[in-house]
């Protein structure tokens, strides 16, 4: 590892809008979260704020070809490119690598409901399913569902023609995306990488998946690190979060503004037994420098057990401190949760809030990771 890795671009789109300052204000407690408790009751969600899509996705035809999770991601990626000052730099975008953390696209809820209703009385369910899918599925919906098509759309809409890779695997995909991007730049395998993810929380199909596992909070959310067992769970949020990472040399050569240094990123996955998360994070902490007055920023999903274990590990390096839970500000954004937490930490450092930050990410079902940042 030789190259210093810096953050030169941030794009955040959430229930708080697209203004970085609004997110910093929320982190400082000067602005409240936006939570919709009605639309998906009993499940509260942080809905996407008002956004004028044309500003980052000028062509209506492009907007139409995407589902919301892709539009959120493409929009946030555009914000990050703007922030890094490379939106208009065709040469930089031709060399820019992309790592996206993504899930899948959403179902056509109406079609699914009709088919499931029909299947109950269908004489030949298999044949009925074939007929209805052939007749009712929009051909282009598939492309709005494929995980790697967020990266594909970033390429098309923003003219980013460097290579892309898409990581899947819920929260840990976001951790690994940032970790691998950091490692490749540090090792000189790439100079500049656009990394991040997006999540559309306003989808019943995803609520269904997480409710099957009993992972959702119902009713009125309490703060993540005070959530009690039995009343805990995820409150998901629509979020797009992207970072432009680059080597310090690359940033200096093009005179880029450095928002923060990304010093180290680690990740692991342990079998979830009592104490396992604490042990995993404790081991990882050995690879991070944590200043006593540094910020603690957490991408915790909102489950009481994992949150307690995360806090126990952090208590060893920052006794008596409660991390800032990004989920309380913008909702838990699954694949985008860790990139959003790193983006917010970088924004806070850039705003002079502290000289360093430790970001923790513990997946609701698997995966544990850390990132440490310092002020530029």
């Amino acid at each position: 590892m030789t190259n210093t890795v810096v953050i030169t671009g941030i794009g955040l789109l959430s229930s708080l809008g697209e203004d970085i300052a609004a997110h910093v204000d929320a982190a400082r407690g000067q602005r409240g979260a936006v939570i919709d408790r009605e639309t998906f009751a009993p499940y509260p969600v942080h809905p996407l704020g008002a956004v004028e899509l044309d500003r980052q996705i000028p062509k209506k035809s492009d907007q139409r070809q995407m589902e919301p999770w892709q539009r959120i991601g493409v929009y946030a990626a555009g914000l990050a490119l703007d922030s890094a000052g490379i939106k208009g730099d065709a040469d930089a975008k031709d060399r820019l690598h992309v790592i996206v953390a993504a899930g899948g696209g959403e179902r056509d809820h109406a079609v699914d409901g009709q088919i499931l209703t029909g299947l109950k009385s269908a004489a030949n369910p298999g044949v009925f399913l074939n007929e209805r899918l052939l007749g009712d599925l929009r051909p282009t919906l598939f492309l709005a569902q494929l995980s790697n098509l967020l990266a594909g759309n970033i390429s098309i809409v923003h003219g980013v023609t460097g290579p892309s890779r898409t990581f899947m695997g819920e929260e840990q995909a976001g951790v690994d995306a940032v970790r691998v991007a950091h490692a490749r730049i540090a090792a000189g395998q790439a100079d500049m990488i656009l990394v991040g993810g997006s999540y559309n929380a306003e989808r019943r199909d995803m609520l269904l998946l997480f409710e099957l596992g009993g992972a959702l909070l119902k009713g009125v959310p309490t703060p993540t690190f005070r959530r009690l067992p039995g009343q805990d769970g995820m409150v998901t949020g629509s979020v797009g979060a992207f970072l432009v990472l680059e080597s310090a040399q690359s940033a200096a050569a093009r005179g880029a503004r450095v928002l923060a240094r990304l010093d180290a990123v680690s990740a692991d996955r342990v079998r979830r037994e009592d104490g396992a998360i604490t042990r995993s994070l404790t081991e990882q902490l050995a690879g991070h420098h944590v200043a006593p007055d540094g910020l603690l920023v957490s991408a915790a999903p909102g489950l009481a057990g994992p949150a307690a274990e995360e806090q126990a590990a952090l208590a060893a390096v920052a006794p008596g401190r409660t991390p800032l839970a990004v989920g309380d500000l913008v909702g838990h954004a699954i694949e985008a949760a860790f990139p959003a937490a790193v983006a917010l930490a970088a924004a806070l450092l850039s705003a002079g809030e502290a000289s360093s930050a430790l970001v923790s990410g513990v997946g609701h079902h698997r995966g544990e990771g850390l990132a440490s940042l310092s002020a530029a």
Partner: protein
Amino acid sequence: MTTDLRDAHGRPLVAITGMGLVTSLGQGKADNWARLTAGQSGIHRITRFPVEGLRTTIAGTVDDLFNEPFAAPELSEKLAMLAADEAVGQAGLGRKGDFPGQLFMAVPPVELEWPQKQVLASASNEAVSYDTLLAAAAAHTHRAYHAMFLFGTVADRIADHFGTKGSPISLSTACSSGATAIQMGVEAIRRGETEAALCIGTDGSVHAEALIRFSLLSALSTHNDPPEEASKPFSKNRDGFVMGEGGAALVLESYASARARGAEILGFVLGCGEKGDGFHRTRSSPDGRPAIVAMQEALADAGLEPDHIDYVNAHGTSTPENDKMEAMSCTAVFGPRMTTLPISSNKSMVGHTLTAAGAVEAVFSMLTIANGRIPPTINYREPDPNIPLDVVPNVARDARVRRVISNSFGFGGQNTCLVFGDAPV
């Protein structure tokens, strides 16, 4: 001495010490190779689900692995498990359940499937909506569905079974995913982050909706009868790809560590190249530049010139667009020599194994080198005058092959090329 263990760029050389394979042709490298070089097809009529009313009724499914109904991620996991078992066994690296390296997995996207949704819908007698399903889910009596349809679960289970180290990567670059898994393993070893990597591509997702989605994009061959003649890459009458299933695994090791433990070296991943394409969601740039650059980058990464390549393992999907674009791009990279440089498509026999394809074809590329025998492109009866290439028509050919470039291209502008060789450059 130490310089022998590094490549032309001064990086650790990456050796292959284990390989495993499952496709519609069979289980294991031996079976697959025998049938592939005999020009046999694994494509058959689908029996997994009713095909009445479908335009395409054939695929290269891998059947008979389950006695009961199963979901796509369960088959993907099984295929990965079988392939990895063979690869790790051959490599003889680490102890059972304690693989001393990282895991990189190309896995297909997953989502709750119709049978599970039907179970949830059965709780109600009224018109079904997602609220019906949510109400049923809230009883928490179907918890297993949650883990089954998380994107990270297949890799999780492989990581647990083989005891790989670190955070496993589940990745997608669409139809080049298998190649990307290998590329990521190579990069991690070159960084010195790990001495070994288990790289897997798997895809067991031929079900009605998956087939219909590709069908609605007019991507699939509709030459259903006879099934084994449907996939005809580079032929004038090619009319789309045939979905296939499979799993392939490679154990990659730094040459230094493989040699130190006296492992049998099967060959080397010499170079990796990739390029994005912002032209269109499903179509590639008309000038072929991204595919050309991906091949050139792979050659440069390997420290090789085009003349050093003995065989092109084609992406060769059998779609009108891909094969034309690939032929044009190869001609741009290899020049006039391309008319005599052998290029063949394994997909003519195993179909397009989608997420797994890049890894499946990596194993076939290595077997081509090891056996000195180039697998054919079968069903080549009507040459396309616009593709004047040596596609190794219909019959395998004996040839000394030292270096292969394997191409993988995917929806979303994904282009990944790998260079394999029998010895370091």
